[in-house]
């Protein structure tokens, strides 16, 4: 009952004209960024974090959350109209959204995506308000051993699920991230690792410049490598979906919302897997699975509900364990630290209302995408008519300014360029980016807790494997690795009679 009252109180607190104005412009900006191929939610959040660090903490976090929700939703526009996912989270939406658009029903598809995203956000928000306080309480039982395994498990599961064809590439990406996080002054004895006398390197490789490089500069190079995308002229059809059409799909919405939220909670997996898993579940449950991929509205609805539900899902571990559920959530985690919020298991003790404030921010952001998405569908298509050669140099200027802004260090621009080149090379070789980001974020947690654990256990590995939660995490990690090994996977498929 207290939780419901706190949640209602948080909704009311945010319902002021100034706050709602911030909700509207930040969500609209997020939608615009999400719509533009080459600009992802991660880049938008990273740039916005650098620009809002002088704002009041509550306002800045609100702006970032609205931008996050807006960007994941905005990407559906490009997926439906151009068959190019605006953000990686919208890839599943293109499967049925684009065929609908080709059939002259783009407006209907966008309306359905909007409603799906809205309900996905609401389901995710409700689950955040329910699950996060419990998870924070559970997190209080975590010691160094558990945090060590959480970091390892996060990188392993993220690598496994973001590189389904070749999990080894996901793991390489994740462990590279963990290694890069070791550069600079370490957190126990203040020793400078891999700095070779450079004072700039002693400060470590900044997360935000690294993300701006890996998701901004690298993406810019990828976009410029591709042939130019077609600009949009017409979308056709009604936009606001019929209430009956949405109401009879309530089970798809609820199932996709819950699945999307759970996929968001898994460290480093995020919105794209939220969409794919929801899409696959909808297809499995459908009486006409063969129509998926040819313009099935259920498929589009499931994908868009799933990816937007994954946003609150990805925020749950950020708030309760200080571990990001996705790449944009990693930026949000960094932003929380910048603004003096200490996420982690103690959050319900130190700032008990904060989780409900975040839930209220997610609610208003979802309302904003519903309103803006349905009202501004046609005017927003102007954004997709900007040629890439005019947009991309401006994006690069923002990458440079954004990297420099936080610490006014030229070194951060070099970090951005370095990570941009690394990210571009890894993408060309089909390595996923999310495990790399997660590795950079979790590197410090892994390092400190491994060494603390070793000291506390006097060099014994027993507590790493015998404490109950540690043991569960260790078994899950080992199972995930074994599952990724080709021969074991094939043997399992043979045993269960599945085709490989």
């Amino acid at each position, binding site marked *: 009952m207290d939780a419901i009252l706190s949640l209602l109180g948080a909704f009311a607190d945010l319902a002021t004209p100034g706050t709602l104005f911030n909700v509207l412009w930040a969500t609209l900006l997020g939608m615009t960024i999400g719509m533009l191929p080459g600009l992802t939610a991660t880049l938008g959040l990273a740039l916005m974090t650098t620009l809002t660090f*002088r704002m009041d903490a509550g306002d800045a976090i609100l702006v970032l959350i609205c931008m996050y929700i807006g960007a994941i939703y905005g990407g559906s526009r490009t997926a439906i109209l151009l068959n190019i996912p605006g953000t990686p989270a919208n890839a599943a939406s293109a499967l049925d959204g684009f065929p609908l658009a080709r059939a002259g029903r783009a407006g209907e598809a966008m309306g359905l995506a909007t409603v799906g995203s809205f309900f996905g956000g609401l389901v995710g928000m409700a689950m955040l308000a329910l699950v996060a306080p419990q998870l924070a309480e559970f997190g209080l039982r975590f010691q160094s051993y558990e945090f060590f395994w959480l970091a390892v498990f996060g990188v392993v599961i993220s690598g496994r699920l973001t590189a389904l064809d070749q999990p*080894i590439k996901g793991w390489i990406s994740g462990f590279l991230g963990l*290694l890069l996080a070791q550069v600079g002054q370490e957190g126990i004895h203040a*020793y400078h690792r891999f700095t070779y006398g450079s004072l700039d390197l002693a400060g470590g490789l900044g997360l935000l410049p690294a993300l701006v490089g890996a998701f901004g500069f690298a993406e*810019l190079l990828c976009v410029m490598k591709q042939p130019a995308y077609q600009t949009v002229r017409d979308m056709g059809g009604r936009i606001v979906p019929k209430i009956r059409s949405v109401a009879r799909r309530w089970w798809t919405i609820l199932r996709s919302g819950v699945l999307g939220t759970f996929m968001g909670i898994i460290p480093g997996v995020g919105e794209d897997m939220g969409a794919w898993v929801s899409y696959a579940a909808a297809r499995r449950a459908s009486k006409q699975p063969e129509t998926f991929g040819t313009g099935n509205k259920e498929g589009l609805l499931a994908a868009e509900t799933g990816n937007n539900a994954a946003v609150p899902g990805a925020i749950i571990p950020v708030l309760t364990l200080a571990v990001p559920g996705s790449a944009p959530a990693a930026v949000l985690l960094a932003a929380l630290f910048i603004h003096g919020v200490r996420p982690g298991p103690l959050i319900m003790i130190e700032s008990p209302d904060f989780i409900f404030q975040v839930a209220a921010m997610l609610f208003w952001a979802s309302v904003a995408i519903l309103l803006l998405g349905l009202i501004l569908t046609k005017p927003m298509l102007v954004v997709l008519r900007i040629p890439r*050669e005019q947009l991309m140099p*401006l994006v690069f200027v923002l990458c*440079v300014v954004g990297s420099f802004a936080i610490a006014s260090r030229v070194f951060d621009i070099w970090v951005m360029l370095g990570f941009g080149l690394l990210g571009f090379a890894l993408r060309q070789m*089909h390595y996923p980016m999310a495990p790399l980001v997660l590795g950079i974020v979790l590197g410090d947690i892994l390092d400190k807790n491994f060494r603390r654990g070793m000291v506390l256990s006097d060099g014994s590995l027993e507590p790493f494997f015998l404490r109950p939660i540690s043991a569960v995490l260790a078994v899950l990690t080992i199972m995930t690795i074994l599952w990724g090994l080709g021969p074991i996977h094939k043997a399992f498929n043979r045993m269960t009679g599945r085709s490989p």
Partner: protein
Amino acid sequence: MSRTPRADFWFSLFLMLLGAAVVFESWRMPRLENLGIDPLSAPGLTPGLLGVVLTILGLWLFLQNRTRKPEQAESDSNASSGWLRVAVTLALCLSYSLILLGWLPFWAATAVFLLVFIFVFSDAAWPLWKRALVASLIAIAGSAAVTLLFEQVFLVRLP
């Protein structure tokens, strides 16, 4: 199935070398025993472990790559023009961020960068004067907008 067998081969060698170098460097890091510090919290412990893991992953990638038949390279007629665009983009972006920004004021460096970038990549079917005009207008407006917005609204220091 790997779509980039040659790149995987070289990258696997790089990973093994990197992992070995990290293990070596971690081993060289002080254990700080002279300061009465428990050697189990030595700074090189975690990086050393990660170096070992990366070496194993590199070896795994190498072996996996050897057992797979190399595939035919994608016959993409746009590939070479794509790489040319990447090279030009890279040259322009690096010139702007590493040379122009230290040499000219931010607004001027940004205007020059935007002008050249847009001019180079704009529609080749347009007449030269139109490409130059569009590029100049966007460069001036873009540079002024970014400078004013960041300095006056967001109160951010510019490089």
